[in-house]
């Protein structure tokens, strides 16, 4: 509760100084609109923003779901098969050295202007953090537990199921939380490069028509959506996996 009050106060003061700065310096509204005119733009275009938001939300949720599943499967594969570790790990790290921004035009070329290229973009951007976080957790299962499991003559499969996976749940959760922040970035990049809907598209559109107030309104909408998604996912993870997280 206290945290919320602090955040609200911080934002209010930012808006206050922003309004003050605009009034004192008086730049043209297409350079920097006042917070108030952004609010007005938001209200006037609320239907438009709403429709484009839905598109982005759908892209993010699909991308997030598939990306997390793929990341988890990869991490498990890396943990179970030594050969996969030797082959895939360098490949994964290499793939991270290519900025996803650079692949975006290719994805649009291959997958078209529709939702698919954005979903893939979101998947690409979150795949590595999820894989890496989950695999770290799996491979860092304390040796003392594995030794105990050995004296108990546990099978590899059961050790994975009952020791390694539960132990890695906190790291997996950090990976998923990170992914929930990155996924909207991926989707919006995809929309910038080529699309006819989504918040990213709306931003480019508003920018091109010098409707800077609408641009800001879309930007804040994206921010609020991202924060809500992060909060919601953190909360869901916390309540569903609490026994693995508190210890």
């Amino acid at each position: 509760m206290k945290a919320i009050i602090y955040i609200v106060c911080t934002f209010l003061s930012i808006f206050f100084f922003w309004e003050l700065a605009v009034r004192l310096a008086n730049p043209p509204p297409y350079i920097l609109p006042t917070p108030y005119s952004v609010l007005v733009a938001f209200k006037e275009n609320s239907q438009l923003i709403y429709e484009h938001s839905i598109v982005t939300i759908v892209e993010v949720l699909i991308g997030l779901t598939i990306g997390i599943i793929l990341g988890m499967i990869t991490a498990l594969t890396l943990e179970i098969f030594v050969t996969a570790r030797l082959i895939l790990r360098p490949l994964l790290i290499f793939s991270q050295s290519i900025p996803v921004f650079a692949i975006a035009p290719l994805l649009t070329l291959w997958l078209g202007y529709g939702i698919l290229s954005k979903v893939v973009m979101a998947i690409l951007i979150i795949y590595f953090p999820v894989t890496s976080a989950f695999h770290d957790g799996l491979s860092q299962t304390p040796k003392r537990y594995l030794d105990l499991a050995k004296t108990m003559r546990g099978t590899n499969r059961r050790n994975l199921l009952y020791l390694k996976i539960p132990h890695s749940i906190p790291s997996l959760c950090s990976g998923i939380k990170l992914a929930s922040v990155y996924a909207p970035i991926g989707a919006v990049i995809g929309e910038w490069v080529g699309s006819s809907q989504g918040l990213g598209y709306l931003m480019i559109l508003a920018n091109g028509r010098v409707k800077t107030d609408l641009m800001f309104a879309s930007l804040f909408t994206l921010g609020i959506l991202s924060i809500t998604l992060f909060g919601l996912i953190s909360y869901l993870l916390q309540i569903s996996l609490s026994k693995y997280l508190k210890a």
Partner: protein
Amino acid sequence: MMSSISPSIELIGSVRSESEVLFGDLRLAVRANQWTCLLGASGIGKSTILRLIAGLPTHVKLDGSIKSNDHLPISNRVSYMAQNDLLIPWATVSANVSLGNKLRGEKFSPEKKLKIIEKVGLMDHKKKYPFQLSGGQRQRAALARTLMENTPIVLLDEPFGSLDSNTREEMIDLTFESLKGKTVLFVTHDPHEAARLCESIYILGRQKTTSNRSLKPPFPKTYSDKLVFDLQYSLLEKIKSNRS
């Protein structure tokens, strides 16, 4: 089903790491149905010997052999209890007790589990998580898990080391009583525990490992037994002289 008759174990050989010889000429006889103690200063390699017997990876090489008198493999009928209770933090006491059964994918009788939990006095705590327990309760849970494993050989690596003195007394009695009939190898740096519990005592040293005089049965001896104090004193002297 594994043989439930406790075997005796003999370890003969030399133990060396890459850089040094830990034990040049080691001869340990761990007899059935009693406690054998490995006594020695911290860091001398007591736990390493337990790991060798349990078949766990170590940083050392054993030139020699570990054999049981029934010529059956040893490492598959061993359970292990350490100073760190090794309870799984995300599992309840009850789930921790039957961890071995779960890892082997075998069925077990819930009544037997409850009996064991009752025996160690954790009935009221069986649904709690390890972090909700005191140090003594955690060690009891670890004991219950060892009893649930019900292996003929039990390796104890300073299981009482982190307990306060009252809890330790209770734990010693409970552990000794509930591990009756098993082959117990007990690692400790405390001559007092060795004198009270063990029918065979080895003092480990870099130069030589010596088999020491121990007290006559029955065990365990009481805390205040005068003979315990005499033996304890002489053991302490020997540990000191072995270290240098």
